[in-house]
């Protein structure tokens, strides 16, 4: 469903993948260059080469545990196959990373036909939730689907106004309440409206919250229960928006949000910067959470589907 969102026409797909590749290549250039540098110097794969590779993966925010695991496997394979060739080593490293990303494939709940699909968008403060919702809404609208946005961030200053502007930009109605209102109540209203109107998608904006704040996390749980009461299986998809600059704390975020809010997928935002976003590899490895989209800018069209192969390939181009 949501995964195939962009796959409407072959032509469009190429265009998007091209763009994603560009965006990713740009940000990965460094990594690729460094790996090139590292592996082409050593005539054979010695300890130093692997140490440098380690530094490279670490600087992409994969974290030491994941890096060590990946390199451990690489080491074994390289030893077993007596690999000394740089290209071959790269290919193997790619394979390892790809295997991790590919193994992550939680599937969203299927909606009961005729009822709206509810997408809950969560994450820590300032990661790009509201912006992602604007972009997602545009994607659905372009497919001719009907969308309702639910402004359940009633906490942050002017968060509702922000979502409303995205609503205007994408021609989407926003269901809201007054600032400081009850998020579950506005969700209730939005879902009732959507059910009555047979809207295709409801996308729910939530206030950014740190995963360590128990009471705010249980608020998400309450929202989920509210959703479930009105629409069977809702929320069908819960997207955790993660900033690509996030370091190892991203793992903790993913763990906690999954536990409290039942995350089914990740949106990796701000990949148009220089950050690598490698923590998603660690997250996929530990929690099996797939990355669904990447954010590559602040404009309405700057959301791209995540393709593990493209992602890993572009690391080494």
């Amino acid at each position, binding site marked *: 469903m949501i995964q195939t969102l962009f796959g409407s026409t072959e032509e469009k797909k190429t265009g998007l993948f091209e763009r994603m590749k560009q965006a990713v290549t740009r940000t990965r250039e460094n990594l690729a260059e460094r790996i090139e540098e590292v592996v082409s110097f050593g005539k054979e794969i010695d300890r130093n080469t692997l140490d440098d590779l380690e530094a490279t993966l670490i600087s992409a925010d994969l974290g030491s545990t994941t890096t060590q695991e990946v390199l451990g496997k690489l080491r074994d394979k390289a030893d077993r196959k007596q690999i000394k060739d740089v290209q071959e080593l790269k290919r193997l490293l790619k394979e390892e990373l790809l295997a991790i990303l590919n193994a992550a494939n939680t599937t969203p709940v299927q909606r009961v036909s005729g009822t709206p699909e509810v997408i809950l968008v969560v994450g820590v*403060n300032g990661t790009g939730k509201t912006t992602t919702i604007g972009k997602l809404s545009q994607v659905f609208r372009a497919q001719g689907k009907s969308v309702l946005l639910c402004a359940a961030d009633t906490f942050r200053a002017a968060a509702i106004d922000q979502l409303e502007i995205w609503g205007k930009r994408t021609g989407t109605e926003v269901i809201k309440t007054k600032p400081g209102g009850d998020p579950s109540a506005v969700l209730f209203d939005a879902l009732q409206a959507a059910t009555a109107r047979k809207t295709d998608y409801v996308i729910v904006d939530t206030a950014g919250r740190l995963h360590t704040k128990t009471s705010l996390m249980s608020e998400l749980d309450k929202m989920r229960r509210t959703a479930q009461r009105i629409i069977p299986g809702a929320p069908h998809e819960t997207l955790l928006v993660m900033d690509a600059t996030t*370091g190892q704390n991203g793992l903790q975020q993913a763990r906690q949000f999954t536990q409290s809010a039942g995350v089914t997928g990740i949106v990796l935002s701000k990949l148009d910067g220089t950050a690598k976003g490698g923590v998603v590899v660690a997250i996929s490895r530990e929690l099996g959470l797939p990355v669904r989209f990447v954010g590559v800018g602040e404009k309405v069209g700057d959301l791209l589907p995540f393709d593990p192969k493209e992602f890993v390939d572009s690391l080494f181009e």
Partner: protein
Amino acid sequence: MFENLQEKLQRAFKSLRGQARLSEENIAEALREIRLALLEADVNFKVVKELIDRIQAKAVGQEVLTALSPGEQVIKIVRDELVETLGKDTARMKFASQPPTVVLMAGLQGSGKTTTSGKLAHWFKAGGHRPLLVSVDVYRPAAREQLKVVAQAVKAQIYEGEVGEANTATVERLVKEARREAIVSGCDVLIVDTAGRLHIDDELMNEMQSLKKLLNPSEILFVADAMTGQDAVRSADEFHKKLSLTGVVLTKMDGDARGGAALSIRQVTGQPIKFIGVGEKYDALEPFHPDRIVSRILGMGDILSLIERAESQIDKKKAEEMATKALTGAGFSLEDFRDQLRQVKKMGSMKSLIGMLPSIGPFSGLQKAADNVDEKQINRVEAIINSMTMHERNHHEVINGSRRKRISRGSGTTVQEVNNLLRQYAQMKKMFKQMGKPSFARRMAGMKLPGM
């Protein structure tokens, strides 16, 4: 939770007992552990390399002290080095000789600039100043509206102006108008909230430079998210190169990020971290304490800020009592334990709190326990203690098998749960006793002692 650095070092140093000096060979394993701890805390790997080199240079050749275990000795060297890197001075804000003093906020998208602008306005007001806020974020939807709400919340004056077209010319016009407004209305500080931007966005970075020229700010603050990973050096470096930052604000420190970005940013900019953001409210701005964040980065907990937070949110007198009792190891009874649980509940997250304790020995058990504890469980524990007699609460050793049965029945729990609680309590009591012992006190305080 990962094994505590101190435990790892202790292990790494088993072989060292009996040796006279720290040498490159005998500290190699310890340095590897430190390196991993720093990386895990998101300190940039190049910065880690430099730090490790400096630590090695300092450690090698030192005599193995008898007063400290070798592990503690190395931790002390590490800690001193990190504290020094972060800068010892408590940072202050610079003021212009000719008002208004201009504070320019800079940083990536979503790092916390607008919120921090509000917090600073609040802070300046508390210091007797009259701040004027202005937002030149003409790009992000409702960004200027956001600052307006913030200004109302902190009861600070704001210059709104008209936007017209969203471009640099508008931005430049807005700051000029705001500055004039500050002078006219007698505001001595002008806080300029800017749009978030990528350090590689030339157009917007040029805009920042032009703002700097126009405003001649006394402070250009780089607002960075404590959760930032390895990329922190890139962005901080670029911002610093283009703007010559004067300071850093590290936001979202109320979470459980280890905050290694602090070291990275300080290292590449050389500028002091002036404040940390510890919440979404406008008074959640605190001065930066290098020694505390170093404990956090190293995963050694932070008794001080735990106590401080307890103080700010709980009955202060009670917190002091608790701290004294706990730290002297004087009768920390089940009654106190229950009090503490109630306070923990009041404070919200048990996990984040216990996460602030060092995870040495008994603590590590506690942390593991905390991972499984939820509020409902706290309620059950409370119920168990409620079912005890006052005598039992003050003399836990009298609670034998039949009393346990009675307590479990009275509280609607199982004997197993009662046993668990008593075990946990005993652990806690033991740990507090240890904290009270001179060796522990020295371990905590010793880090600040000169020489050794």
